């Protein structure tokens, strides 16, 4: 018996699941302190399920708290930044392209030090202890308690980052150290950015994870809890406290994984119609298709694996103009119950059109009975055209694909959609996020450069796959359930030794949960 929770900006959704069954589901407002909202939501869903807190075997939580903190520039701490690279990389120091208001919050405590690796693992320079100690002392006297360390080609060899981290901990007792090699992939600017953002979230991550722990304890849930990361797999709460930045994309990822679960589709288009926007993504082999372009978080360039989501300005609260010819992008959002015509308000919204057309039963239909039928028809047609265009933009084949509607806005869809072989609005679509969290697997990933010459491609790939599987197991996966989800090879131009950059992702079920 598992609980999945999605702590969003507006709502905290919770589900109880038993094996593959959704036993109970609720939506509840997110609270300022996060914790009381979770207590409320989990108590309610347990009550609905008639299940005791002690019967719960694990809790999975997805949250946008950390993304929001970066985007809103709130609850961040000042950080120390060390880059191990000299004499290389001086042309672009850390923070070079960061928005000024964000740098203001985290400070510009940058130290460039000797170190780093070449693509083949040789050192660029030896690590110099005196440089690291000097940096540590400087940070300590500035009251800094969180440091990000990035070394050139760290994904190839973590050693130098580890040694520098040890030196820092010896100098600054209790310091939180973020190593870029644990967070990011090849691409110094983006990986270092991720490490720095992570370091700035160190206090918040303790507070949020602490709030989760306290909330669950208060309810009497003693089961271990996990938190979703970017690719939809789980991290232990300890891991999240150390790497909050890995949760950035978990919201849309969970929503899509929830859609996959509710329909049992491995490949489908997921359309999440919310209050203001519709997010469209593609499920491929049960996981969201990743974005091919670098993703910006709060104005900072990253190379996180984020789902490739197309967002359009269409939601349940979108304003209707030009006699139905124009929909949105502005919306009354969560104030629909105040401003929508079917609720006695004076703003014509898409929900009003849906009710007037007979597609939905919400609020008081009499309040929209006077709407011109041509306006309603035109508006509904426009809504469907917008959805069809979005679906066409994300498809990779010409063949029709299954379309799954999640979120609350499914009521807007009243006819078949071009490009869709079928349109499914599954039960519990509104809490797809929480379900996605509940069904998440544990993952492990390898991303570095291998030399195919000598050992050959097969041996190298086998080694990479084994390493990825080991990482999944270290993260809590049941060894018997681990499978290789993805293998990507990029040969490196101009370099000898058959150098290939290999990326392998392995996933498995949480140990102790079998097919649960």
């Amino acid at each position: 018996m598992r609980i999945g929770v999605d702590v969003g900006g507006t709502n905290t959704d919770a589900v109880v699941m038993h094996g593959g069954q959704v036993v109970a589901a609720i939506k509840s407002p997110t609270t300022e302190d996060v914790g009381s909202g979770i207590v409320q939501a989990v108590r309610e869903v347990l009550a609905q399920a008639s299940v005791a807190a002690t019967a719960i075997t694990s809790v999975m939580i997805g949250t946008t708290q950390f993304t929001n903190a970066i985007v809103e520039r709130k609850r961040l701490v000042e950080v120390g930044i060390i880059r191990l690279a000299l004499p290389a990389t001086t042309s672009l120091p850390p923070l070079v392209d960061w928005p000024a208001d964000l740098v203001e919050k985290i400070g510009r405590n940058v130290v460039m030090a000797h170190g780093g690796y070449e693509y083949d693992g040789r050192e660029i320079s030896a690590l110099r202890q005196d440089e690291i100690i000097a940096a540590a002392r400087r940070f300590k006297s500035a009251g800094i308690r969180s440091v990000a360390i990035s070394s050139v080609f760290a994904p190839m060899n973590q050693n130098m980052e580890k040694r520098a981290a040890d030196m820092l901990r010896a100098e600054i007792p209790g310091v939180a150290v973020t190593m870029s090699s644990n967070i990011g992939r090849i691409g110094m600017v983006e990986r270092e950015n991720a490490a720095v953002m992570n370091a700035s979230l160190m206090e918040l991550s303790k507070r949020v994870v602490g709030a989760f722990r306290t909330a669950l304890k208060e309810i009497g849930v003693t089961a271990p809890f996990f938190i979703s990361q970017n690719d939809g797999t789980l991290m232990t709460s300890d891991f999240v406290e150390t790497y909050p930045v890995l949760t950035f994309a978990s919201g849309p990822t969970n929503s899509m994984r929830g859609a996959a679960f509710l329909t049992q589709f491995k490949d489908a288009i997921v359309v999440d119609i919310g209050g203001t926007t519709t997010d469209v993504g593609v499920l491929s082999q049960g996981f969201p298709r990743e974005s091919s372009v670098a993703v910006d978080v709060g104005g900072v360039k990253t190379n996180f694996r984020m789902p490739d989501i197309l967002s359009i300005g269409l939601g349940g609260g979108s304003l209707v103009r030009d006699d139905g010819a124009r929909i949105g992008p502005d919306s009354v959002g969560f104030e629909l119950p105040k401003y929508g015509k079917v609720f006695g308000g004076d703003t014509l919204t898409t929900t009003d059109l849906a009710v007037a057309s007979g597609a939905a039963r919400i609020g008081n239909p009499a309040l929209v009975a006077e709407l011109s039928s041509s306006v309603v028809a035109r508006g509904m047609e426009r809504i469907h055209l917008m959805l069809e265009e979005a679906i066409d933009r994300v498809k990779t084949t010409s063949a029709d694909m299954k379309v799954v509607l999640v979120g609350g806005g499914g009521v807007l869809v009243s006819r078949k959609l071009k490009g869709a072989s079928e349109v499914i609005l599954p039960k519990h679509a509104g809490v797809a996020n929480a379900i996605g969290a509940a069904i998440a697997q544990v993952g492990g990933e390898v991303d570095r450069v291998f030399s195919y010459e000598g050992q050959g491609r097969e041996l190298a790939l086998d080694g990479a796959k084994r390493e990825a599987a080991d990482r999944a197991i270290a993260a809590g996966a049941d060894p018997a359930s681990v499978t290789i989800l993805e293998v990507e090879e990029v040969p490196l131009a101009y370099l000898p030794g058959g150098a290939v950059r290999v990326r392998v992702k392995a996933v498995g079920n949480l140990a102790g949960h079998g097919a649960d």
Partner: protein
Amino acid sequence: MDITLDRLHDLARGAAFLGTGGGGDPYIGRLMLQQQLSGGGRVRLIDPSELDDDALVVPVANMGAPTVLVERFPNGPSAVQAVRKMERLLGRKVDALMPIEAGGVNCTLPLVVGSLMNLPVVDADGMGRAFPELQMTTFSIYGVAGSPVVIHDEHGNDVVVSAVDDKTSEWLARVVCMRMGGKAEITLYPMSGRDAKTKSVPYTVSLALQIGGVLGAARSTKSDPFAALDGFFRAARPPRCFKVLFDGKVTDLWRETTRGFAVGHLVLGTLDGTGTPMDIDFQNEYLSARIGELYVATTPDLICILDRETAEPITTEGLRYGQRVKVVGVGVPPVMRTPEALAVWGPRVFGVERDYIPIEHMGD
């Protein structure tokens, strides 16, 4: 003319366009120049005609793998040292710098170096785009010796290659670059002002600026960037052929290492699934495009893959399954199409077994 901060996005975008899939991460190129300019540096671009015949002009570039560049950025001061070494070897001061290729990161690095050394940069290059090997330049084709090639690294090491021909310069320099970690700053093809004026592909840095500007303007006015490009190339003097060769999505993609390069192939399908797919061969840069068995463009003409909506150029490293793209082709100037030039960068050089046909005559 001075290149200022407000033009950098355009320059990086245009350089990525001319990079035809290669040339490295344009983001890094832009940031480096941004750093230099924000620090008070000045970048002067000069018309080739402003050069004295007996000036000393030296191309400066980064040599190495794009995948190394994203970890170990190009280094301006190291490039300055390479230029200084060249001056010592030749016994005279350099009067102006020049890009060896206007495509990719090597369009912006010379501008950074020019700013550091307070030297002007000639608005011209040796490739009119990007190519993978050092001998693939108009300089070499029309008789300027590539040697000495000064190869400098960030530790302060340098190696000078003096070879009997430019293909050998490439062969020897490449292995030095690899030993230096897959990246080095280089100067090569020291030439007179007269040679710079007559043996380069002219106005390619401003071409990059213009192309980037056309795309940027289309985006901000929300108009069709492809129509804008078409208009731009039509109005160029002399006009250059511009074609949208394909509109579709990436349906297949593979890469492997052959002959020391990342060789690859992609297949594009049409958006509605009807019609014949397009095949593109690449070797860092896009080399040939065909629809079924019908070739529609080959090197040296530019083949560029752009995001279908934003027209942002996509490098070969940035290719992914499912990307929605448009493939465009641009004809190169006559100086790049002579028999001597084609012997150096025509299709057969890259293993595409056919003779070059100018893009304006292909696909008829």
